[in-house]
């Protein structure tokens, strides 16, 4: 099945996307991730101010049958949280790249985003799964 992979975003092998906005990144889960999980019914996100290292678990997304950790693609400090997802977790299925953004992180090292996957890298990675 073909999955939506916007070319203006960066990706991880954990199926998170990041959108770089200056020294801040927006983070969410990919279309592939939401499709593999099925109906998403619960999202748990960190508090504003939490510091994250790259690859550190920052939250949890749950479908009816499964619990999956969310891993931060970058290091930095959580500056904004999409708290609306608490009451509308189904947005993760409907709008993984827009309405269901999860957190915004102020980068502690702006170079780190360079090591993330491009859309075509991520597409290639998906084809190996």
């Amino acid at each position: 099945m073909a999955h939506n992979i916007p070319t203006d975003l960066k990706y991880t092998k954990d199926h998170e996307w990041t959108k770089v906005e200056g020294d801040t990144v927006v983070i969410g889960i990919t279309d592939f991730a939401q499709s593999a999980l099925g109906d998403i019914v619960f999202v748990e996100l960190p508090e504003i101010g939490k510091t994250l290292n790259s690859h550190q678990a920052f939250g949890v997304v749950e479908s009816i049958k499964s619990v999956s950790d969310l891993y931060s693609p970058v290091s930095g400090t959580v500056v904004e949280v999409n708290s609306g997802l608490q009451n509308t977790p189904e947005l993760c299925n409907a709008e993984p790249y827009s309405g269901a953004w999860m957190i915004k992180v102020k980068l502690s090292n702006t170079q780190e985003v360079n090591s993330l996957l491009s859309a075509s890298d991520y597409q290639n990675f998906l084809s190996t799964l």
Partner: protein
Amino acid sequence: MTNQKTSLYEEHVLLNAKMAPFAGFDMPLQYSSVKEEVQAVRTHSGVFDVSHMGEFLVEGADAVNFVDFIITNDFKNAENLKAVYSPLCRDNGTVIDDLIAYKLAEDRVLICVNASNIKKDWDWISSKISNFKCTIKNQSDDYSLLAVQGPECNKILQEIGVLKAIDFPYYSILETNFEGEKLIIARTGYTGEDGFEIFSSHSFAKSFWKKLLSLGVKPCGLAARDVLRLEVCYPLYGHELNDEVTPLDAGLAWTVKLSKEAFIGKSALIDYKPRFQLVKLSLERGIPREGYDVLDSNHNLIGKITSGTMSVVTGKGIAMALIEKDKNPKDKKYIINIRSTNYEANFHTKSFITGGHK
């Protein structure tokens, strides 16, 4: 080892079902959306391929006496063409499996068991039969089994013509001929809704599956089945029931008829002081999952979640938990620990929802 496939395997693949190994079979976990599948069964109709389940046929003059002897519930006094749910216990009272026994005739009983326990049940049951005038056959590979569940099923099956009898109460069974095919139809299920389980040949199941889908019955997978049974608090072997507990630990005292003259496990169960109490808990926020710790209001560990999920109907996290009886709090205040955070749970005396079965 390759998994077994049911007769409907190709149909599942054609429908793009998410397949998963279960009890040695490749089974459909979900087809479209678990939520939609659950809602279909609660409000209209759904069909499950449950051909992985096991079927044993007991035949002979002592068939009823034998089944009555090996299970804890009363089978002897059940009317002809009735279905009886029961645990199957060892001499020490622990649960080997839970099953449904169908009284097809005074000398013919069909037993339907969990797929994961077919071999264990067969070894146990067939070893107990020698003093009885009856035989037992393992027909697990001979039958396909479709569970057609939901409030509209009765109407749909009558439209197809497979059901004619008007007076066909819940938990009963009939044998019928339809289009040259011998069918066993039971008004039973694992969803809490009105519904039917149809034992048939593999070829009939294939064509009947397609017929049901063409009439708008939604194909439903094991994930929806698990939510449905948990919303109405039906136990599942390997979760609420297992080799270590007795029926009296798991809220099944109603299925243990100590007044019966003799049955396997009776002497142990008469004197048994339950170690556990099965409780029903829900959360306002968060989803309880199997294995999570349950604490009392002083944060002492008192038990574990045995099954948990998000209820599609209530939109809340729901769970059953086995609580150590001597630690079960009188104030009924329970806390569920999720990823190191404590959440106060709601205690329920009744199932989370009431199914529509009659």
